[in-house]
């Protein structure tokens, strides 16, 4: 137990002696120049407050200069990792651009929108947050939020052909042929009335002249009349509902008594005409 305790204690003492200095940023400056070398904006960057968002148009150039130093001594160092991170927080697109740093800690970065680096992520009309990530094997790491940057929107990249299947596709509604239009019902009614008008004439004339039907209910001819009416009814039923096979069947069944009734009826009228009356 005791040797292990002293072993751990010796590590603690060693840790107390080694105090890794942390990296810090000195004199960060940015400059935006347009394509004809006029300076559009130039300023130092404050590490505590972000400046107004920077805007680059399609031909502008952004130059960023700073020096990486050890905090406390102010000596320039070249850290292992000096990356600029361009990040769109809404779409999640990110681009990492390493920045070349001299052994004395001086760094310069140039972003020419006419020839943008491959590390610039796809952009839209939203700003990119630009931050600086410093990392080192011997110093404590540091991260600084520098500024927000508006760049022209990039064209969308080609997507995989199956990517559309992973989303809801647009609804398709079938366009049906319009319903067939019929002529107005009033016109049909008028012409139906026209077709039925002779009945009106007939009925009015009959009312004047009078119909004599003395033998209507005679037992010899009434069944035939009835069966004839049944045939008409069967025909109407066929029009409304029945199929051909059914109507032939019922008609066949109905035909048998009709034949006998008809023979009787005709014989009876024949006898009447021959002289019974």
């Amino acid at each position, binding site marked *: 137990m005791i040797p292990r305790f002293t072993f751990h204690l010796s590590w603690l003492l060693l840790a107390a002696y080694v105090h890794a200095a942390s990296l810090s940023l000195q004199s960060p400056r940015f400059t935006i120049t347009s394509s004809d070398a006029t300076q559009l904006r130039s300023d130092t960057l404050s590490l505590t407050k972000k400046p107004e968002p920077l805007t680059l148009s399609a031909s502008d150039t952004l130059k960023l200069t700073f020096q990486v130093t050890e905090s406390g001594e102010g000596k320039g*160092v*070249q850290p*292992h*990792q000096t*990356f600029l*991170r361009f*990040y769109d927080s809404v779409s999640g697109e*990110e681009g*990492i651009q*390493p920045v*070349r*740093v001299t052994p004395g800690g001086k760094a310069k970065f140039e972003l020419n929108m006419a020839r943008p680096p*491959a*590390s610039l992520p796809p952009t839209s009309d939203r700003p990119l947050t630009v931050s600086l*990530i410093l*990392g*080192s*094997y*011997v110093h*404590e*790491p540091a991260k600084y939020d520098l500024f927000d940057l508006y760049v022209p929107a990039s064209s969308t990249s*080609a997507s*995989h052909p*199956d*990517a559309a299947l*992973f989303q809801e*596709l*647009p*609804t*398709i*509604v*079938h366009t*049906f*042929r319009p319903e067939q239009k*019929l002529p107005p019902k009033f016109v*049909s*009614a008028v012409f*139906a009335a*026209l*077709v*039925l008008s002779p*009945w009106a004439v007939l009925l009015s004339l009959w009312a004047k*002249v009078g*119909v*004599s*039907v*003395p*033998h*209507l209910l005679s037992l010899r*001819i009434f069944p*035939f*009349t009835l069966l*004839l*009416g049944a045939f*008409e009814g069967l*025909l*109407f039923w066929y029009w409304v509902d029945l199929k051909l096979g059914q109507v032939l069947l019922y008609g066949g069944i109905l035909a048998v008594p009709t034949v006998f009734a008809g023979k009787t*009826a005709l014989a009876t009228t024949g006898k009447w*005409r021959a002289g019974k*009356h």
Partner: protein
Amino acid sequence: MRIFGSALVSLLVLAGKVLAKSSSGDSVLVLLDPSLDKADYSIFFSGLEKRGYDLTFRAPKDTSPVISEYDVPNYSHVILFTPDTKTYASDITPQSLVGLLSENTNLLIALSPKQTPLTSLATEFSLIPPPPGTPLVSHHPKRPEPATVIPVPVSSSPILTAGTPPVWFSGAPHALGNSPYLVPILRAPAESFAADSTEDSGADAIIEAADKGGEGLWAGSQMSLVTGFQTTKNSRVVFAGGVELFSDEYARKELPSGTPSGNAQFARDIAAWVLQETLTLRIDSTEHHRVNETLAPEMYTINDQIVYTAHISSYDRRTSTWKPYSGITDMQLEFTMLDPHVRIALPPVAGEPGKYEVQFRAPDRHGVFKFVVGWRRNGYSFLHTSTTVPVVPPRHDEYPRFLSAAWPYYAGAISTSAGFFLFAALWLAGDVKGEKKNLKGAKSE
């Protein structure tokens, strides 16, 4: 009494083993590098065994047990913890592993910064590994561990338990291609990057590599450390950038903030996804019929009102059974003849779990149509079903009858019938006026 007690215990243990198994089989083949010790991964493996899986261990160069014989896989799942192996036995090749995926076998593959056959397999799945020998390095956050051992925050995902603490990772990242079948599970932290230098003087090498390489620098949160891929046959493969993610040492290591790491929980969650326990869905049955009927007719007529029903269930790992699932809100039904003629939402029916129903009108084109339901979402099993039905034009007696335009004709025909009947009745019933020598006597009307 003691016998009863032990019987009860063994019954409970057996019951515990029976619970929470995969929906597609329990046999797992684990290929372990000879340089790795099984005991170093005991938390992960014993977790799998406790959930009811049969693990078989094998070295990559052993010739038995083979992973598949005569194109039939011998195991339901294969785990490859072989980050350092450059040559395998003859039954394990990238082609045979892809063949396993076609036969519905799932794979869990651990990669490494070294160039192995598995790295070239990963490129087939739209993963872009960094140059060989460049492990993931991150100087943030400040910690006593070396820069290659990185605590990675876990973002929310349907695959992972909410609130999983950051996990320790060491290995290689990979960039993702644009395949939609990829399921990124763990993204690299924004400050991390792949580099082979171990001193600050390596900074220039990083800049040169970034300028020269076509892919640029493998850095930032666009990199992925653990990525899944689901094939169209619903078999799953997970590529993890390093095998230490699953080790006991990382599961027990504390994070820089002092809390325990999420490695054990994370390893359990990705194992559950790969082994087809979670996010596993299937279509149980589909039905289609006309609106007021229950049986599917042999054929539909154009302009019919059709009702289509689908029953979907998801695998419940707690009870190892398939339970009806009504959680899909964006499923769509397509009624297709070469191209979709109708595409509508297929919503779940409230009150009937697992049932999705929609009613629509058949198009007025006749032909052979298909009811197609194809649902693909990242991380979930793909659902696909297709039912073919004929749609015919109306038969001769299915057209509208008794049109208003035909009233005059109805009136005429009925008049004729009525007139005939009336004439016959009146003639038979009428009086024969007297006797005449010519029988063409006056007949009454």
